[in-house]
């Protein structure tokens, strides 16, 4: 396996990928089979209430939400790193974190909406602070990715993107504040979790969710980073090859020196 050179995989990332896949399978087992639905009994009326089986969506939704914010913080940190150091490593890291974070963020919004329909009885709740903040965050990073996809000198793009990421993350507390004052209510009571009959197994499954989706995110980040790195290397290599060709046309004797190690490529 390790002998193959035409992929972005490495021994480490394959191990990570396999553990993530196994982890998802185990998580599915815990989330759907081993844990009980959230059913509570009203102390006086004896009525059953709670989230019932919809709670099983939270083992997916909550870890992904936390990881979304983690990815965006990583993106902002890497953007600062880029503005200070100006090396491609920081830039590629920021791009990778933003893209993976946006995939996660979109899924958080979708799964949250699907969960909200049976539990809150609505697909979308305009007054909810966390919901609206996450939506604005998603839109901000769609803009970031749109900027990233424009064609322009890579160093210019890296600087612009770093500023956009920083502003986006700085904007979040203000969005949060304003939405909170705006409607001054939230369905996302901190209690969504605290209120559950927290059995050991429920809590364990949730923690497992953090670990498993953490592995998935790490695998995606790693591969996205390598793709980004390759994109830059390919662009540079393309320029080097073009220069070499020009030199060859001019019939220069030391073409190999001009190409560098490019001749080793497949």
């Amino acid at each position, binding site marked *: 396996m390790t002998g193959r050179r035409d992929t972005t995989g490495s021994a480490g990332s394959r191990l990570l990928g396999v553990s993530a896949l196994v982890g998802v399978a185990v998580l599915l087992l815990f989330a759907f089979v081993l844990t009980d639905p959230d059913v509570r009994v009203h102390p006086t009326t004896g009525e059953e209430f709670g989230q019932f089986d919809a709670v099983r969506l939270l083992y997916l939704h909550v870890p992904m939400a936390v990881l979304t914010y983690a990815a965006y913080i990583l993106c902002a940190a890497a953007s600062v790193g880029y503005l200070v150091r100006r090396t491609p490593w920081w830039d590629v890291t920021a791009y990778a974190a933003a893209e993976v974070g946006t995939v996660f963020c979109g899924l958080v919004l979708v799964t949250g909406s699907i969960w909200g329909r049976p539990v809150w009885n609505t697909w979308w709740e305009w007054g909810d602070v966390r919901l609206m903040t996450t939506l604005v965050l998603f839109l901000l990073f769609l803009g970031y990715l749109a900027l990233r996809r*424009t064609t322009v000198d890579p160093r210019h793009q890296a600087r*612009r993107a770093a500023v956009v990421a920083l*502003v986006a993350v700085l904007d979040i507390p203000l969005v949060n*504040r304003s939405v909170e*004052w705006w409607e001054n209510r939230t369905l996302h009571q901190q209690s969504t979790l605290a209120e559950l009959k927290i059995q050991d197994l429920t809590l364990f499954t949730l923690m497992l969710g953090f670990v498993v989706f953490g592995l998935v995110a790490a695998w995606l980040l790693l591969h996205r980073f390598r793709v980004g790195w390759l994109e830059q290397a390919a662009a540079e290599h393309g320029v080097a090859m073009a220069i070499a060709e020009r030199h060859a046309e001019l019939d220069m004797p030391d073409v190999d020196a001009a190409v560098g190690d490019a001749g080793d490529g497949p």
Partner: protein
Amino acid sequence: MREVFADALLIAAKDLRIEARSRVLVNQVAPFALLVLVLFGFALDADQRTLRTFAPGLFWVAVLLASLLAVQRSTSLEHADGAHTGLRLSGMAPSSVFLGKAAAVFVQLAVLEVLLVVGIVVLYGSTIEDPLLLVVSGLVAGVAVAATGTLYGALASGLGVRETLLPILLLPVLAPVLIGATRAFDDALGAAAVDGWAWLGLLVVFGLVATVLGALAHGALIED
């Protein structure tokens, strides 16, 4: 420090002089903003009570849409005839260029806001209950929009797709301004019972952060 502001004044005066001669704001941006108000009227079925209730929000949506045009115009000034090269060679600090351009956009937005207030009073039947709050929050939100818009205008400048990129970059960032300014106007126009002055605090914070960040970041965006 004083030099920074003196240079900023020069830049702002230059942009405003160009505006005075070309009259893009008067001939295009202001009519567009009024058109938006009229379209809202059509969309909401010309019921003046509905319109009066939503006037603050409609007002600020119209300002944000018009600000996109003002910002596009402001950045395109620097790209015509390679003017930005001349600006860089002038040796002015990037932060004074930013402050100057933001100030010019702000002045234009302030004129626009006056027009739009007249517009909602005449077309939507709004009444001004608290003129001081209206003026102060209008100005502060104008600073916030102008500073953020100028920063993002610089970000998107020089890209082939800047006309389509600017809105998706700028509008989500301005979400807190839209909410805050709408609430302040809710109070000032008596459209809803909220404490507009409290919202002004949020607008002040946003305006300060946007101005400082823009002045600092502008150098990174236009260097080399």
